[in-house]
């Protein structure tokens, strides 16, 4: 839940107000809620802001006193449930073994029991008091929290500093007291408010079914009488049934909101949302413009974030790729390679901002086309083998279907034809025929990489972009890939760009090399030239290291 601050503030305010009202109920309520102080069934008016019920009791006073019971039962039950959850969860996580298995089985059991049906039956036996209700609700609601706290405590016990403490001889109880409780408290607080929300709802439901304590006022009890006395079929429901219902609902919603906010404190990843596309500077489409290559990058400047904290990833990068070329882009980590790849695909995401410059693919610039035209370019004019090609598969679909989908998206073919095309290209890149129907998880890293290459090539793109193509492959796999790119891609694609930090691979492949460092192009030229006379400090260091490595390796083998 995006716990925007305003919502959380509102939720806190609502709860604080009702907590104050519950505490000061005797002084705040205009009348004794148990006394008949007005005409029965009177609508809201002077003296009775919410009207009166069927025996002339003041509804506002009932609501104010009802807050006491509802919040007390909810809070006390939540306290009990959270206490049980913390005890069971920590014991399970710290001691483990048989104790853990038994407790977690019990949790499983409690989680599948339909809570309301069980609460009804037990409430009917325990009788209708506040105390039995608290016990019952605590016993019903502890299980979820126990599981959550156990999981988080286990995760913490795996962390380096805890393992170090244990190795140093720290006892379990000390660990729990000194470290875990402190680290877990936001989660415990989240569990508390969520248990309280559930307890409030259950308490209201029990009271509504007439199983609450008839001698004390509660919100659920008010709704029970509103229903039993037929307020629903008269107009009286508006001031008799709506206010207590809203009180229950808004209080539960406020608690849930606080719970989400606390959970996000524990797991900041919950806050992450899919980023929107970065905005490109608008470039008017120019029909007379002559493309200088399949990919043209002009003075491209990209920053992440705004203000003084902004990081400039690309700083006036220019260059172009002509048809038939195989260009290598090398640079250290953080040199802006990934940003360049995303920009080339037109897939930069906020917080990236394009400050200036342009990227044009087959003469079409990303800033000047609408979303639909942009999609038509991707995988058709410019195709990508992503850095994470091994993991970039939808796990629920066979690989061949996903390749066929790339065909069907861009070409008006029947399903069967698209599939046949996909199979043909898969075969071409050496994907084993027997694995055609396999799901991604059943394939080896090399097979997944090949299949992605097939997907990138299947529409015969003008430009193939290989992003760190050798990542995650062993030396043999790297060699195969290099040969594949050299032999096959030239047939299927008009130009290739290899982006990599792996200089040896790029040297073997590229006709021309561009060196990127700190977001700028620091050097470019043919591989031989770069190898023989590197100009920039980074290039010199890498080439030097490479030659030293080769020298010592040669010395070892030959000598």
């Amino acid at each position, binding site marked *: 839940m995006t716990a925007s601050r305003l919502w959380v503030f509102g939720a806190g305010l609502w709860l604080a107000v009702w907590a104050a009202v519950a505490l000061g109920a005797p002084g705040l309520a205009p009348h004794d809620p148990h006394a008949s102080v007005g005409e029965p069934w009177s609508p809201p008016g002077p003296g009775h802001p919410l009207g009166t019920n069927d025996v002339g009791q003041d509804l506002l006073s009932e609501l104010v006193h009802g807050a006491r019971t509802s919040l007390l039962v909810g809070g006390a039950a939540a306290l009990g449930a959270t206490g049980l959850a913390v005890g069971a969860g920590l014991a399970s996580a710290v001691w483990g073994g048989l104790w853990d298995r038994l407790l977690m089985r019990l949790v499983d059991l409690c989680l599948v029991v339909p809570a309301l049906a069980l609460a009804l039956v037990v409430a009917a036996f325990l009788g209708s008091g506040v105390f039995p209700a608290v016990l019952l609700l605590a016993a019903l609601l502890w299980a979820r929290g126990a599981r959550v706290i156990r999981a988080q405590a286990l995760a913490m016990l795996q962390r380096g500093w805890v393992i170090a403490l244990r190795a140093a001889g720290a006892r379990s109880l000390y660990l729990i007291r000194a470290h875990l409780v402190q680290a877990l408290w936001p989660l415990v607080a989240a569990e508390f408010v969520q248990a309280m929300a559930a307890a409030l709802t259950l308490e209201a439901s029990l009271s509504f079914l007439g199983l609450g304590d008839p001698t004390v006022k509660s919100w659920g009890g008010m*709704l029970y009488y509103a229903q039993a006395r037929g307020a629903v079929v008269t107009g009286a*429901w508006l001031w008799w049934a709506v206010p207590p219902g809203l009180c229950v609902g808004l209080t539960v919603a406020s608690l849930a909101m606080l719970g989400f906010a606390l959970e996000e404190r524990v797991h900041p990843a919950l806050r992450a949302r899919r980023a929107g596309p970065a905005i490109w500077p608008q470039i008017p489409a120019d029909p007379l413009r002559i493309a200088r290559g399949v990919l043209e990058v002009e003075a491209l400047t990209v920053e992440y974030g705004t203000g003084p904290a902004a990081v400039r990833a690309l700083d006036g990068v220019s260059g172009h790729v002509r048809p038939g070329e195989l260009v290598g882009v090398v640079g250290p980590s953080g040199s802006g390679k990934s940003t360049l790849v995303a920009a080339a695909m037109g897939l930069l995401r906020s917080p990236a901002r394009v400050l200036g410059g342009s990227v044009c693919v087959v003469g079409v610039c990303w800033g000047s086309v609408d979303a639909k035209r942009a999609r038509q370019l991707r995988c058709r004019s410019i195709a990508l083998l992503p850095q994470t090609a091994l993991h970039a598969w939808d796990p629920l679909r066979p690989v061949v279907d996903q390749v066929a989908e790339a065909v069907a998206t861009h070409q008006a073919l029947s399903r069967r034809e698209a599939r046949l095309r996909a199979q043909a290209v898969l075969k071409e890149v050496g994907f084993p025929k027997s694995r055609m129907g396999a799901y991604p998880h059943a394939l080896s890293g090399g097979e997944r990489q090949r299949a992605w290459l097939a997907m990138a090539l299947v529409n015969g793109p003008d430009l193939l972009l290989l992003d760190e193509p050798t990542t995650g492959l062993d030396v043999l796999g790297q060699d195969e890939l290099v040969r594949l790119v050299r032999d096959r891609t030239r047939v299927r694609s008009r130009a290739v760009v290899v982006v990599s930090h792996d200089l040896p691979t790029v040297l073997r492949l590229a006709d021309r090399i561009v060196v990127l460092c700190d977001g700028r192009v620091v050097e470019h030229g043919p591989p031989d030239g770069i190898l023989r006379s590197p100009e920039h400090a980074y290039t010199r260091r890498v080439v030097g290291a490479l030659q030293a490595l080769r020298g010592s390796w040669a010395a070892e083998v030959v000598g």
Partner: protein
Amino acid sequence: MARWVPYCALAWAVVTVNFALPRVAPGHPLDYLLGEEAARLSPRQRAEALRAFGLDRPLHEQYIAYVVGLATGRWGRSVRFGRPVLEVIAERLPRTLALFIPATLIAVFLGTVLGAWAGYTTRARWDAGVSSAVLLLDAMPGFWIAMVLLSVFAVELGWFPVSGSSFAASPQPWEQVRRAVLPAATLVLATLGRTFLVVRGAMRSVCQEEFLWALEAKGLPPRAVLWRHALPNAWLPAYTQIVLHLGAGAGGAVVVETVFGYPGMGRALYEALLARDYPLLQGILSVVAFATIVANAAADATYPWFDPRLRGGPAA
């Protein structure tokens, strides 16, 4: 196999609690089994009744007899309705399912569509608006939603009948559907939030996965990315919960059926409780427990349909 242990334990626990309830509750078991008639029995009739129910035998024999009776369909007679328990359940269960299954399917559909969209969209404000509204709806007690719908649509506007108590007497199928609309709508509104929150959360984490960005690099339009790829992945965590929820539905929706006077399992449970009708109460609880177990088995068995990674076969 280990997954089955808790559910078998649950079945055993429910059966045992059922057996124990009339025996540990204050008063004599006969009072519960026969209701008010028990007070009018002569000592000889009492002894005969004890023998007839097997209450004069040792406890462990009673227990075995009870379990065997449960397994062979001798579930006793309902005090409240004066008919065999199985007959009452056979009448009520289909009504509850006729209400609960369509309502749950609609709620799951709406919750999934809204939750998937809210988790996927890059427009934070739209997401916040929809999520807050659903959260608020989810927080409202089901019986209160029922009361408001009843007041507005049945009493004020008169579009639907006020009470479903004459449900059984009503002959026309159309009339029966009309009576079920408001209870079903209540169930939809009260339960769609659960699916929404699970699916939205799961969608959020799917959106962090590599393959989603790669799908855009393939040139797929956003709706294909969302519905064809992201949603099936996000739906997996929600699936088990939904099936288990369906299982719990066999017990009926007590509060909703009570507000609308809908003669289903939930209402029967409530009536049995008020009348201290133990045989019926035991019967309903047994049905709930067995439905829970069946739902769990169904969830376990069907999950691999949606997730190829669990279908076995060689993994690399």
